[in-house]
């Protein structure tokens, strides 16, 4: 048995304090699940402006966080709060893992296929929420995706021949997939039409509601990438909060894994690409 520890916190991405708490916790726990570990204990990390916000709001946020900690069978064992002008919330999580069976992000094999378990566009959509540009139904839809734990996906993938896993966060699909093959004799081929870009995010992208982090990702990663169709590829670079798992699995297992993920509530799961021999560029989108 080995220990794994992670820490992450975020500023609010939705107005509802309980849902923000859920999302921040899901985001903090994600690293644990990407490694295939079991979350054991969690500590709250909170920055709160107590002068301008009531204690009830803080309680709601922490309740949302606790809800997600409980959902994956971990225990909240404490935490620390300080006064900050900008709200921060997240967790430090301790998990356990079998040192002979855990997942790294850079141990992919040639001919593996890549499954992504959540749709892309969360950076754009949370920017749109801050700009007050989304209706209630869309906010609810986005909130549900953000708050969904990668816990069950992590348990499911362990039944299959999976070589490497990462979770998609700030560097977007482009950045985190690049990490999977960096310094290897491998490239990645994505199929544009199979990548689950949320329609609402595309609409907001057309309006120019794109966060700076997404453009930073594009500036760094587009030289390593070839997008061979004329389609808009900005969502490929979109910085995600609480994104899905990107799972590298043997091709023969891919369809079964995909079916099981979809049946378990990861309805946007899709086979989006594969690992190929090294070509001139690192990433190809066809």
């Amino acid at each position, binding site marked *: 048995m080995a220990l794994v520890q992670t820490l992450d916190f975020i500023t609010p991405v939705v107005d509802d304090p309980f849902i923000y708490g859920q999302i921040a916790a899901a985001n903090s726990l994600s690293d644990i699940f990407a490694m295939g570990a079991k979350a054991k204990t969690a500590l709250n990390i909170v920055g709160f402006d107590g002068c301008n916000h009531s204690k009830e709001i803080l309680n709601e946020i922490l309740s949302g966080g606790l809800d997600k900690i409980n959902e994956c069978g971990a225990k909240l064992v404490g935490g620390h709060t300080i006064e900050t002008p900008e709200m921060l919330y997240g967790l430090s999580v301790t998990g356990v893992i079998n040192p002979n069976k855990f997942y790294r992000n850079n141990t992919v094999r040639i001919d593996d296929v890549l499954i992504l378990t959540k749709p892309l566009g969360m950076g754009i959509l949370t920017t*749109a929420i801050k*700009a007050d540009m989304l209706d209630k139904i869309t906010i609810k839809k986005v909130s549900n995706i953000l708050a969904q734990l990668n816990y069950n996906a992590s348990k499911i993938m362990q039944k299959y021949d999976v070589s490497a896993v990462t979770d998609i966060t700030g560097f977007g699909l482009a950045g985190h997939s690049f990490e999977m093959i960096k310094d290897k004799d491998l490239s990645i081929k994505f199929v544009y039409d199979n990548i689950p870009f949320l329609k609402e995010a595309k609409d907001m992208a*057309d309006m*120019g509601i794109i966060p*700076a982090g997404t*453009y930073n990702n594009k500036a760094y990663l587009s030289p390593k990438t070839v997008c061979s169709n004329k389609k808009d590829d900005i969502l490929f670079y979109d910085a995600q909060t609480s994104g899905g798992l990107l799972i590298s699995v043997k091709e023969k297992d891919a369809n079964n894994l995909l079916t099981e993920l979809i049946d378990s509530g990861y309805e946007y799961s899709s086979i989006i690409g594969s690992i190929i021999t090294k070509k001139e560029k690192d990433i190809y989108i066809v």
Partner: protein
Amino acid sequence: MKRGKTVQINCCNQDCPKPVLDTKKALESLENDSILEVLVNATSSVENIKRYATNNGYSYEIEELEDNITKIIIIKGYECNIVGTSQENKFLDKTIFIKDDKVGDGELGNILMEGFLKTTLEFKELPKNIILVNKGVFLTTKNQTTIEILKEFENRGVNIYSCGLCMNFYKIDTQELQVGEIGNAYDSMDMLLHTQTTTL
């Protein structure tokens, strides 16, 4: 060309998506045929505003200023196109004065006249006016090749004046004028005196 007012907003040092939202708000409050200039100093702001403009059917132009500031000039309206913003700069402060249907003698003279006119169209900036006097009026009434070339000048906004007295002298009916308009001595001399003149 009709043109509304020009409004400038400064969106430097603002985080996304504020610049694009301010741009949207400003464009919505402007009347048609107005111009909005947006100042930004972040790549993401430039890209977002370009996206917004493109996907909402606005034409725009980008101008790089000092201190890493970018000016995005957006046109609101249908009649107005982007070229209109720099109309003053599109034309040279020049008048071409043509007093013959040829440049020099004989058949070569015809070829040269057609060639010179045609080549002038290759330049981004055109002369403001073309004045045709004496046998020059054949170029706007009889010579189909030069008529076509001169129509191109007219499409690009160049004023073309053919001397009425000269047409009369050569017994060319005003109906036969294919391009431009009939000029008079006063306007012609005004242009020749107050703009730089090149004689072909």
